């Protein structure tokens, strides 16, 4: 019973404080700003907190608890690196390694995976980016996505290379081309012609739903 009374008291106190903060907003710096409009305005230090009118931000916006330490479980930079090159045996380690240490730790394992995917990689003369096996894997084992500060952002569009990743980029075909296609994009290996298997394209070139032209760009859920 005592506990119920105590909680009721807290609730009434809470209501009173809300009322108080609303009243206070009549004479503040920015008459548009309130402590419950969902944006940081007036002299607030965060969303609806801090400043001369709202509750303090010590626990983050709206008094919600954002405290604590968060430890890494997964990481992704470039597409498909984990599908293709980071196999079960070292995937958990890879996911909990900072990018600046990945190269030293995982290049050897990833080179073995390239070798097993395409034993002819070196014999065929590397890839269309002019990379031998070690250069190719050293690039991928630093698992970050390069993103151009200006100009075209694309994984590969025929002229621009690795400057970002758009929603519609056929990133898997580009990866397959790098792994199986050899150095000449116009006469690639493994293109399905003659006796050769088709390994440079998975035969899926676009998403099953069109993307939006404006934010958030992603198509609505199925």
């Amino acid at each position, binding site marked *: 019973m005592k506990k119920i009374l105590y909680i009721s008291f*807290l609730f009434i*106190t*809470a209501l009173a404080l809300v009322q108080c903060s609303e009243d206070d907003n009549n004479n503040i710096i920015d008459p548009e700003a309130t402590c419950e409009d*969902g*944006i*940081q305005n007036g002299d607030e230090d965060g*969303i*609806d907190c801090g400043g001369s009118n709202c*509750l303090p931000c010590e626990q*983050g*916006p*709206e*008094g*919600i608890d*954002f*405290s*604590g330490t*968060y430890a*890494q*479980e*997964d*990481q*992704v*930079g470039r*597409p498909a690196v984990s599908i293709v090159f980071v196999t079960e045996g070292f995937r*958990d380690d890879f996911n909990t390694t*900072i*990018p*600046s240490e990945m190269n030293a730790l995982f290049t050897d394992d990833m080179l073995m995976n390239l070798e097993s995917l395409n034993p002819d990689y070196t014999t065929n003369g590397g890839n269309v980016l002019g990379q031998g096996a070690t250069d190719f894997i050293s690039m991928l084992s630093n698992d*970050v996505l*390069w*993103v*151009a*500060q200006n*100009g075209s952002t*694309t994984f590969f569009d025929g002229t621009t*290379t*690795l400057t*970002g*990743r758009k*929603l*519609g980029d056929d990133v*898997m075909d580009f990866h397959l081309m790098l792994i199986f296609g050899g150095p000449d994009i116009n006469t690639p290996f493994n293109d*399905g012609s003659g006796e050769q298997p*088709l*390994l440079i394209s*998975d*035969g899926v*070139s676009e*998403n*099953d*739903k069109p993307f939006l*032209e404006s*934010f*958030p*760009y992603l*198509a*609505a*859920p*199925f």
Partner: protein
Amino acid sequence: MKKTHIVSIVAIGLLIAGTPFLISGDHIDAPSVTGTTSDISSFYAFEGENSNNLVLIANLQGFLPSGTATENAEFDEDVLVEFNIDTTGDLVEDLVIQSIKRGDTMYFFGPTVPASTGLQSEIATFATANKVAISEGTTDAEAIVSENNNMKFFAGPRDDPFFFDLNRYNAIVSGQVSDFNVEGEDTFAEKNVLSIAIEIPKSMLGAGSVGANPFEPTTPTYSMWVETKRKQ
């Protein structure tokens, strides 16, 4: 007295949010993140409709089928999703944008210089804060977007933008078949993901580093990646 104050603040937060307080869900301490709430399926970064902006998208919890699985899918309040931005080319994050769910809302902090780099993070409540209501997961649901501090925010289920004949690839790798079909089958078709999207002025991220990308040696470039981190 201090405790009373804290509880009152929480109560006010609930009143303002107008939603019941959600206690975070069960932990699944699997050795791998596959299939867990921290599993990142993909990361996108590209120039926005407005060429002064960049768009960053992290997708989590892939392979959600349409219907109740997508409608009931939830971001985890214990999982911090952190966009890392290296502006100098040394593979160490100079800026982060953090996002984490509380109640029915996704909160965003940054871009900001993180208190510390690496595998452990604290939430940068000292940084610019923004939020957006998490969108619904029903078929063809409208996206709820918030816009503030020249940035745009979205969080919620979306169609998985990734396309690949993963089943055929796995069959090739395991030796069952020798190559792809000319007409492949998109393993990710009609599957949804939980998406977090941010559109941000490039000016907030600084100049970038010339030479980071050897294939575009004169283009100033950021190195970016996304991480999920679980509350300890």
